[in-house]
C-alpha cells in the first residue's frame, strides 16, 4: 500500500497535498481499501465552510455510506466533478485523479500539525 512522501495525513485517513495556498484533499489508499468499491460520492458544495474533523462529504459503497472528515478548517474552493460520474477514481487513484476537494483559507500551522507519511504508516502499523 502506497503512502506518498510530501503528503500530510490524518487519523481519520484523509490526505492533504499543498498546491500553493490551496490544500488538495482526498482519502488514503488504506481508507479506500477498507471502504471497498465506491459507487457514489455526495460532493460538497463549492463555497462550503468546513471545520477540522467536521463533515466534508459522504462516500458510499454498495453496502454503506461513510463520512469523510475535513482534515483542515477552510472553504471548499473546488470539488472533483469527475467523481460524480466515476466514484471508482477514488479506488483506482486515491492520491491523484481521486482527489475530492480543494480548500482555501487554511492555516499553515494546521497543515504542519498533520502527520507525515512515516507517522501515518506507524499509525497503521505498516
Amino acid at each position, binding site marked *: 500500500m502506497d503512502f506518498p512522501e510530501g503528503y500530510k495525513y490524518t487519523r481519520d485517513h484523509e490526505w492533504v497535498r499543498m498546491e500553493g495556498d490551496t490544500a488538495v484533499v482526498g482519502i488514503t489508499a488504506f481508507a479506500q481499501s477498507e471502504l*471497498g*468499491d465506491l*459507487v*457514489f460520492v*455526495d460532493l460538497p458544495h463549492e463555497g462550503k465552510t468546513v471545520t477540522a474533523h467536521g463533515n466534508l462529504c*459522504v462516500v*458510499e*459503497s*454498495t*453496502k*454503506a*455510506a461513510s463520512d469523510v472528515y475535513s482534515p483542515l478548517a477552510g472553504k471548499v474552493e473546488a470539488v472533483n466533478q469527475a467523481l*460524480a460520474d466515476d466514484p*471508482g477514481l477514488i*479506488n483506482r487513484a486515491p492520491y491523484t485523479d481521486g482527489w475530492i476537494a480543494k480548500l482555501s483559507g487554511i492555516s499553515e500551522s494546521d497543515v504542519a500539525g498533520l502527520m507525515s507519511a512515516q507517522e501515518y504508516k506507524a499509525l497503521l502499523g505498516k
Partner: protein
Amino acid sequence: MKRTPLYEEHIRLGAKMVDFAGWEMPVQYSGVIAEHTAVREAVGLFDVSHMGEIWVTGPEALAALEHLTCNKVAALYDGKAQYSALLNHQGGVVDDIIVYRVNSERYLLCVNASNAEKDFEWMKAHNHTSAKITNESSEWGQIAVQGPRAIELVAPLVRDHDLSSVKSFHFVETEILGSSVIIARTGYTGEDGVEIFVRANNVANVWCLLLEHGASYGVLPCGLGARDSLRLEAALPLHGHELGEEITALESGLGWIVKLDKGDFIGRKALEVQKSAGVPRKLVGFALDDAGIARQGDRVTDTVGNTEVGVVTSGTKTPTVNKAIGMALVASAHCALGANLSVTVRGRSIRAHVVPLPFYKREKRH
C-alpha cells in the same frame, strides 16, 4: 465468532472478513463490482456454509411440514425443491426456506444462518407429529456456484448425472471427489447456477477443485457484498430486511408461496383474514430520481414530504443496473407503478418513484 470450514481458504485468498450474524464471513475478495460482474457474465463461487440444514424425517414428515410451512409440500416429489416459509400465528415470517424432498420420509430444509437455531426450536415446539427434526447445520457446508457458466463448470466434475438436464428447483444426490453431495439448481443471484451441499470435512476440497477448474471459465470467489447486490437486483427478499416476524407473508409479496387451500398451517387464519380485508402495505421496488442512495430504515413519505407512508427495506446503487434502487414497504394506496414518493436520505428528501420488480432479469438461453 463462528467460522465455516472454508475460513483458511478465505484468508489465503485475501478476503476481507466481517461479522455476519455471528459468523466471520468474507464480504469481498477482489472487489464487490468485479465479483458482481463475474456472476452476471461468467461464474462466481460463494461460501454459504453458514446457512442452516435442518432435516425432517419419518413417516409423518409430510404432515409435519404441511403444518409448519406455508407452501404445498404435497406438490413435491423426490428430487424436487420448493421455496417456502415458516410463519408465525400472525402470518409473519419466522424464516424463508427451501424445502428439498429426498424421499417421502426425508426432507431437507435450508434455512438462513442467523435464524437456524430459532427455526429449529420453533419447529420442535410446533411439531405435533412423530416426525423427527434434526439440526445438522454444523455438519454441512454449502458452496453456491452462480452465473451463466456455472453449469459448464460443475457438470464435468459429476460423473453419474447430466447436470444440464437438472431443471430449476430440482436436485440430485451424487459425488464430487468421492464425497457425497447434494447439488440443487437453485441460487440467490438471479442467474443460473447450483448450490452444493457438502459434508463439512470435504467442503475445502470441493471449493479448491471448483476454483482451480473454474479458472478457464473466469470464476471469481465472491463475498457477501456481491451476494447482497446481486440478490437485490433480482428482487430476492432477505430476512431481516424485506422479511420479518412483524411483516406478514402477504405484505412482503410472498403470496405466491402461501397456499391457503392446502389445509391448516401456522399463520393461515391470520392471512385469510388479511387477504379478505386487503393488505395495508406492500413491498415495492423504487428508483431514486435524484442523486443519492437510499438505505434500510430510511423513511418513505408522500411527495409533499410530511406524511410517512413507508420504510426502505434494502437500497443501494448496484453494478449491473447502475442506478440507485431499492425495495420498500409502502402503504397500499401509494404502491401503484409509477407512483411518486420521497425518501429521506440522511436528513434530505430525495424524489423517487415505484418501479416494477425485479430490477434485473437474465435472458433465457436456449
